């Protein structure tokens, strides 16, 4: 009962905070400055990890498919086809966003949590600045803008990783290319983009809520950071089920 009450209280406070955060900025000039900074900090700084993970996962998926469904009855192009579908439909959108929930979510929660306990957020409030709007809106907008780009990079990197397995002699490049082109449905790419935008909102808003509402000291900031990652990940998985059902 207490847990249910806590969850409802949290939901109410989250909605209230989002109400304050998602209002028109006090100064568009300041908002755009913050927006560009957040895109750089949250997105640009994540490109490296996205490319590396996607490259190796693309390669491993390709090798696993090859090893596990190898049969005289199965055409070789199935390896490329399956790798493409996995990367487009699930890995680059959902799993990559789960990984980014860890990196970006903890970053946002700990940044805002530290600002809260060092009274920097109080300082903004005293100045008459809508601190939720000034701090949270650029993070949400920035991540929602950059996430589809990261997903696109992830798909591309995964496909390159799959191509590179041909150097190991498992499949030929020609077979992979045939598989990658086979029955390509462009809508699947857009599904990934739509999912990424939704997940970006979940990661940025939930992590901001956890960080912004911290009370206490460094231990609580650490806890908020962990809670932000766990809650974002759970919500992404929930959303994945619904979005997959709705979009495909």
């Amino acid at each position: 009962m207490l847990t249910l009450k806590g969850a409802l209280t949290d939901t109410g406070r989250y909605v209230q905070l989002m109400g304050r955060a998602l209002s028109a900025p006090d100064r568009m000039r300041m908002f755009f400055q913050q927006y560009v900074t957040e895109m750089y900090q949250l997105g640009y700084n994540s490109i490296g990890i996205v490319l590396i993970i996607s490259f190796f996962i693309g390669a491993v998926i390709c090798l696993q498919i090859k090893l596990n469904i190898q049969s005289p009855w199965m055409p070789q192009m199935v390896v490329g086809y399956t790798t493409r579908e996995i990367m487009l439909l699930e890995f680059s959108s959902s799993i990559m966003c789960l990984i980014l929930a860890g990196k970006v979510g903890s970053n946002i929660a700990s940044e805002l949590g530290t600002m809260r306990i060092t009274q920097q957020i109080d300082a903004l409030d005293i100045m008459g600045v809508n601190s939720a709007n000034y701090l949270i809106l650029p993070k949400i907008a920035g991540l929602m803008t950059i996430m589809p780009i990261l997903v696109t990079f992830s798909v591309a990197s995964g496909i390159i990783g799959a191509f590179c397995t041909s150097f190991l002699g498992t499949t030929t490049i020609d077979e992979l290319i045939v598989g990658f082109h086979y029955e390509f449905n462009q809508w699947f790419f857009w599904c990934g983009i739509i999912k990424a935008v939704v997940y970006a909102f979940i990661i940025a808003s939930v992590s901001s809520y956890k960080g912004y509402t911290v009370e206490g000291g460094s231990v609580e900031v650490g806890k908020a950071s962990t809670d932000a990652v766990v809650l974002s990940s759970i919500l992404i998985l929930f959303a994945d089920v619904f979005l997959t059902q709705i979009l495909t």
Partner: protein
Amino acid sequence: MIHIEHLYKSFDGRDVLKDINATFENGKVNLIIGQSGSGKTVLMKNIVGLLTPERGSIDYDGRDFVSMTKREKILLRREMGMIFQSAALFDSMSVLDNVMFPLNMFSDKCYADRVKRAEECLARVNLAGTGTKFPKELSGGMQKRVAIARAIALEPKYLFCDEPNSGLDPKTSIVIDELIQGITHEMGITTIVNTHDMNSVMGIGESIIFICKGRVEWHGSNTEIMDATNPQLQDFIFASDILRQVKEAHDREA
């Protein structure tokens, strides 16, 4: 002028402020003093709106802050400047950007004028030429001075200082006190300083209220405080050996 009447605040049924009545005058440094845990910080947080009182009124030159709408409170807050105990500088910004922040948010001046105003404020707190540094590169006293520069950038009507000397050596504390007093007199603003530093009390306490267990137990000035007969206030002031000796000398002379 800020006038408080019958202010009450409690947390989980525990009364922290009980029927606070006080007037903070314009053009003077008004001190709120008291032991740790007496309710000073809670009172200041209520005055600036970081907490909402259960009962009572907080009147800013005829405008009741408690009954204001959110929008009206935001507009009034633009007339306030605050110096926090920890300075609360934005650590991702340079010193100049910190001081320029309120100007960037609320001033319609062009960029060059905003920079000029921020540099004037830094010069006023004797930190000219430090604009490109970041808060982590400054000492505690310098951070407090940057916080003062940021607080006065928009020429506020009300200045609030929450334990501005906390963590500073006595010499730097005097510099900060003198800055606060000088700025208050120059700008003719209402300044409220929350402190338990007796050097500040004796140095800049033009108007003082003493809070004990959530109640105002005494009010007066630094010239009257040594003769105060309130036992709690005497306990608080003369906890220091030096002040006790000063008092004894003062009494002998009298």
